[in-house]
C-alpha cells in the first residue's frame, strides 16, 4: 500500500498526512479522472494481474480499504 499512498501524494502535493482507508478517493478526486488509467496500471503492476474494466465497479476503487481487499489481498 506504500506505493499507492506515495502515488496519491505525488498526484496531490497539497495533501497533508496519511489518507484514511475509508476516504472517498474518487469523489474527492484524489484519483483525478485524467490519472485513472495510470492508477489502474499501478494496481496491475502491484497485483501482477490485469484488470478488466468490464468486470469491476467504481466502488472497487473508491477507498484504500477496498483497493487493498479487492486487488492486493494475498488471501487465496
Amino acid at each position, binding site marked *: 500500500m506504500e506505493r499507492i499512498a506515495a502515488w496519491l501524494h505525488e498526484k496531490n502535493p497539497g495533501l497533508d498526512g496519511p489518507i484514511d482507508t475509508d476516504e472517498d478517493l*474518487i*469523489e474527492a478526486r484524489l484519483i483525478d*479522472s485524467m*490519472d*485513472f*488509467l495510470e492508477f489502474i496500471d499501478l494496481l496491475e503492476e502491484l497485483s501482477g494481474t490485469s484488470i478488466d*474494466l468490464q468486470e469491476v465497479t467504481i466502488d472497487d476503487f473508491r477507498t484504500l480499504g477496498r483497493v487493498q481487499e479487492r486487488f492486493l489481498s494475498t488471501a487465496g
Partner: protein
Amino acid sequence: MSTPSTTALPDGGLRSPGAGLITLDPVHTALLRGLDDLLTGLAARLSAPEVLGPPLLSVEGLARLDFFRNFPHLGVSAGRFDADALDGLAAGETPGELGLRPTGHLLPSATCYGLLLSLEGRDVGEDGLRLSATGRCFRNETHYDGLRRLWGFHMREVLYLGTKQGAVEHLEQGAEFIRQAAASLGLELSRAVADDPFYDKGGSRAKLMALDPVKHEFSAPDGTAIASVNRHRNFFGERLDIRAGSEGPAYSACVAFGVERWVHAMILTHGSPEQALDRLREARLRGVDG
C-alpha cells in the same frame, strides 16, 4: 389610424442561412421563449438568481477547465480579419478567401463555463451558491439535424456550487423538476446514463465516466436528449480556486436544458408547432406543480 395587424411571413417562410443554422419563425420563437420561461421555474424553486454569462470565453480560461483536452473538436473560434486584409475587404474582395487571426476567445459551448470562470477565487460559503442563465451555445458537429442538432442553440442551466451533499441534492431537485415539467407539457421522457462527447473516447476520463457516470440525460421518445443532470465533483472548485467555506474546494453540479430540443420534443409529441404552443399555454396557466 387603425392598429397594424400582425405582419404575415412571405410565402415559403424564413430561409435557413446554412447547415445547422435556423431562423425561428414567430410560432417557434413563441415556443422557445415560453418553454424557457417555464423551465426557469426550476431557478425560482431553488432561489437561483438569473444572470447573463459572457458572450465569449478566453482560450486560457477554457484550457484551465481541460476544455481542449476533452472537446477540441467542438470549439467555435472568434476570429478577426488580419489588418492587412481590411483594405481588400473594403474594396469588395470575398471574405472567405482572406485570413482570420485568432482573438484568444471562443464562443461558449455550454452556459456554465462563463459562470464558473466568473467565480474564480471566490468563496461561495457552506450554504453554496446557485445561478441560473440561458446562453446561446455553439458546437462544431459532424452533421446537423433540424432543431435536434444545431451549430448554435440556447442552453438554460441552473448551476450549483457548494458542498458535496449540496450538489447531490441539487441534482435530485433538478431531476424531479424535469419530470414534473415534462408531465405538465405532456412529454414522455426516459432517463439514462449519458456520455459527454469526449474527443478521446478511449481515454482515462471516458473510462472513468463509464464506471462512474456523472451525467444523466432525459430523452424524448425519438431519442433526442432534451435535459441533463451533471455533477463535476470538485473539479471546477479546484481548478478555479472556488471554495465552499471550511469545506474546501467547492463541489459543483448543473441541470441543463437544450431549449430548441424542448421545442422539437413538443412538436414531435403534439403534432404541429401551433398545437404545441396551445399545450404550452395550458401548462403555463396550470404551472409545473399543477
